């Protein structure tokens, strides 16, 4: 453990942080609606100096054989080296894959999109929803920023025109995606080991010092839609319960911004 890390733990013991925030405080969060007019829907999320854009594109494809009457969802995140000296060129590595899978499952498994309403002709044609995440600046907490941008972009998206044969992306309709809920991911990070402290929305500096994290996705009705523990330090049951409580509270705040 280095000095900076020890100092952060010391602050956490007093309930505060390098930038004076409380442990359960987010940095200022803003959502810009549809900054990308070429996308069917898009959202730019800023959390402090972290900045991401989620873009939703729609296309017509074939359904999976085991779900012949449901549309499909593909979430991709590339950690483009434009956003951080830590990112490298090349195909997505395990961190980018975990990020996109956590975002994906938070939307997919919560049933936030009514996948059956994306079916055009069973077994033959369904809408495919692509969510692509572009990180513009990485200053920590990408899971929460990307999840928020994704669900916001979905809720802003409209279908392009489709005549039964070809999609005309140039002409957008006013029909919205069949959204049923607004799952929000909040990730609680742990710093220190014994004693350990929980905090939310870390900067990149805090994230580097964190020993573990737990992402909790919550729904409009207060239910939990997804959990994902990351990194190697264990959690106790009490810490999990604390994380869920914080996520419910913070999730409500973030949901209100969309």
């Amino acid at each position, binding site marked *: 453990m280095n000095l900076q890390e020890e100092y952060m733990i010391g602050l956490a013991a007093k309930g505060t942080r390098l930038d004076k925030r409380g442990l359960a405080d987010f940095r200022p969060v803003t959502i810009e609606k549809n900054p990308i007019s070429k996308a069917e829907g898009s959202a730019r999320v800023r959390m402090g100096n972290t900045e991401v854009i989620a873009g939703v594109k729609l296309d017509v494809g074939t359904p999976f054989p085991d779900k012949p009457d449901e549309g499909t969802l593909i979430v991709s995140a590339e950690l483009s080296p434009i956003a951080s000296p830590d990112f490298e060129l090349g195909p997505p590595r395990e961190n980018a894959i975990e990020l996109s899978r956590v975002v994906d499952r938070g939307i997919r498994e919560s049933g936030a999109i009514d996948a059956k309403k994306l079916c055009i002709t069973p077994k033959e044609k369904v809408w495919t929803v692509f969510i692509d995440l572009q990180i513009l600046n990485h200053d920590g907490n990408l899971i929460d920023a990307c999840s928020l941008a994704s669900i916001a972009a979905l809720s802003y998206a409209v279908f392009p025109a489709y005549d039964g044969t070809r999609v005309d992306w140039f002409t957008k309709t006013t029909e919205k995606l069949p959204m049923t809920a607004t799952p929000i991911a909040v990730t609680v990070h742990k710093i220190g080991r014994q004693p350990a402290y929980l905090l939310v929305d870390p900067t990149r500096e805090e994230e580097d010092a964190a020993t573990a994290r737990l992402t909790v996705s919550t729904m409009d009705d207060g239910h*939990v839609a*997804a959990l994902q*523990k990351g990194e190697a330090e*264990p959690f106790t049951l009490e810490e999990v319960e604390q994380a869920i409580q914080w996520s419910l509270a913070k999730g409500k705040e973030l949901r209100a911004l969309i």
Partner: protein
Amino acid sequence: MKRDDGRKVDEIRPMEIVAGVIKNADGSAMVRMGRTVAVAGVYGPREYLPKHKQRSDRGVLRCVYQMVPFSTDERVRPGPSRRSTEISLVTTHALQPAIFLEEFPKTVIDVFINIIQADAGTRTAGINAASVALADAGIPMRDLVASVASGKIGDHYVLDLAGKEEEATAADMPIACMPRTKKITLLQMDGDLPPQDIKGIIQLSLQGCEKIYALQVEALRKRWKL
């Protein structure tokens, strides 16, 4: 509540653990949980090459989870997928806290987990096998790691989901822990649950992990002829 396979809600599937199944490996184990079969092989600690990847203060643990193509109903394409990459990552994190990595600076411990038959709970079976394989390799550990996936069907918390229960459950929550301290080293969940249910399911799983732990210890005893 009656389960398809006749188990009680808090009962794990019939489980078989055999240590030392791969002669070439430094440690190995086969775990069968119902119809799911995982094989784990450990190689190391061995020098980590290329050298610039070495950690001077501790060893590095690398786990690779993969499904063998014939392990499922529909054949799995060989090679890593996004799913297997993520499971490899969370498996590494699930096992790492149990190992005294600080005793092996500059080395790497490789854990290969091959699922040769899949019927729910492959990541948890893989973690159970890997944990025994690490111990079989003689690597000093704080504790074993035990793992099980549980959920909620109807009003019941249900331990060790199998077969069609994965579709019937309101949520699928795999968990891993170090049983002696009940510290949770893996926690994932997809589904829809009120917060209080999460606690209930975790507690059920922690109890299930104790049973698995006993079988792991027994398998190691048998292997070491204790």
